[in-house]
């Protein structure tokens, strides 16, 4: 299989998957070395032509539309992207960098109650419960989800932007 065939085959696999697929599974299906698959994927990601793009998101690779054509996609699908409130984004940021973290710990940073926004974030599938802290009252711990990675378009938590010093 030459490089052109490899990237075309990858395109097929990503198309039928519709969601993020780990490199290992792609390599397995293609019977090609994972290292080589990764290189091919990186090359595909670097391309800027076409309405579709290859992206590394939430622990895998996927084929998705380019943001600059979103207005047409949303009109066809009749949807309107919904933004998170700033309060919700702040809370999400604290959880992302400090996870697993309890509600009271988040409140200590924000200086304000977070009950409402926690509900929103959970309903959007961006955070989930992650057991309980071995501390008085055994408060619930929270962590971010795969959905959160997709939300920011990152592969894993290591890709989170650096916190300011």
């Amino acid at each position, binding site marked *: 299989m030459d490089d052109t065939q490899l990237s075309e085959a990858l395109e097929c696999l990503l198309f039928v998957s519709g969601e993020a697929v780990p490199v290992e599974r792609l390599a397995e299906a293609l019977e090609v070395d994972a290292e080589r698959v990764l290189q091919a994927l990186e090359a595909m990601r670097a391309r800027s032509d076409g309405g579709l*793009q290859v992206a590394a998101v939430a622990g895998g690779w996927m084929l998705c539309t380019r*943001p600059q054509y979103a207005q047409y996609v*949303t009109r066809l699908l009749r949807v309107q992207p*919904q933004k998170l409130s700033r309060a919700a984004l702040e809370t999400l940021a604290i959880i992302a960098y400090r996870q697993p973290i309890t509600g009271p710990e988040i409140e200590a940073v*924000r*200086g*304000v109650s977070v009950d409402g926004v926690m509900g929103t974030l959970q309903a959007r599938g*961006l955070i989930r419960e992650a057991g309980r802290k071995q501390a008085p009252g055994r408060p619930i711990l929270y962590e971010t989800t795969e959905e959160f990675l997709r*939300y920011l378009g990152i592969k894993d938590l290591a890709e989170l932007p650096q916190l300011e010093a």
Partner: protein
Amino acid sequence: MAYVVELDAFRGPLDLLLHLIQKNEVDIYDIPIARITDQYLAALKLMEALDIEVAGEFIVMAATLMEIKSRMLLPPAPKEYSEEEGPDPRAELVQMLEEYRRYQSAAELFRSRAEVWTRVFPRGGELPPEVAALVPDTELANLSVSTLVDALHQVLLEAEADHGVTAVQRERVTVRMQIAELWRRLNANPEGVSFRSLFTHPVTRVEVIAMFLAVLELLRLGRICVVQPHTFGDLRIQKVAAPTAPGDGGAAGTAVR
């Protein structure tokens, strides 16, 4: 009916403090505590005036600020008791503000990244959950609430300058007066009057209410009947020829007596 508007206003006391520090262009490590405290308290007052519920956390912060302010007014301890200067009363607050600010700017980064990524769609009819569960976005374009609150503050200050006094006249319309008026009209039009016509010429709210009560009162007394010839059509009010004969429903349609 009271129209209740809830604003995300300031996302908490720390947010409000950072806003004030930014507005005053002062150093976060050397906060002019007296000035900032005054402005913080003024902002709380304004929020109360706006009927924005001031959460307990805001009050706690106000107390903290006043405590720091009073501690800074105390003369420093005499040298013989302490070799070094005591800790700055503001230190703890500054640390909190700094940490909060870090996450605030991270949230800002999240927002810009998410802005791009909510416009990226995977294949298929299945939408990402955050897109599927959507309601119209009501966020004001690029206006922050702080900008709005500042603007409103300005308007209120200007409005205060105008101390004009207006006398408000109380409207004197009673149900009794409206009954007399309705009765006069019914006498003038034996075939009945249209319900709608009772309210057509320019009337005040009080007049409308009194007239409606007058109709109800006369109905209750059995002096008039109301018929509706057509479904959803206008109502006709007619005098009842006393005493009423049973089964005399008047015109076709529904009659209320």
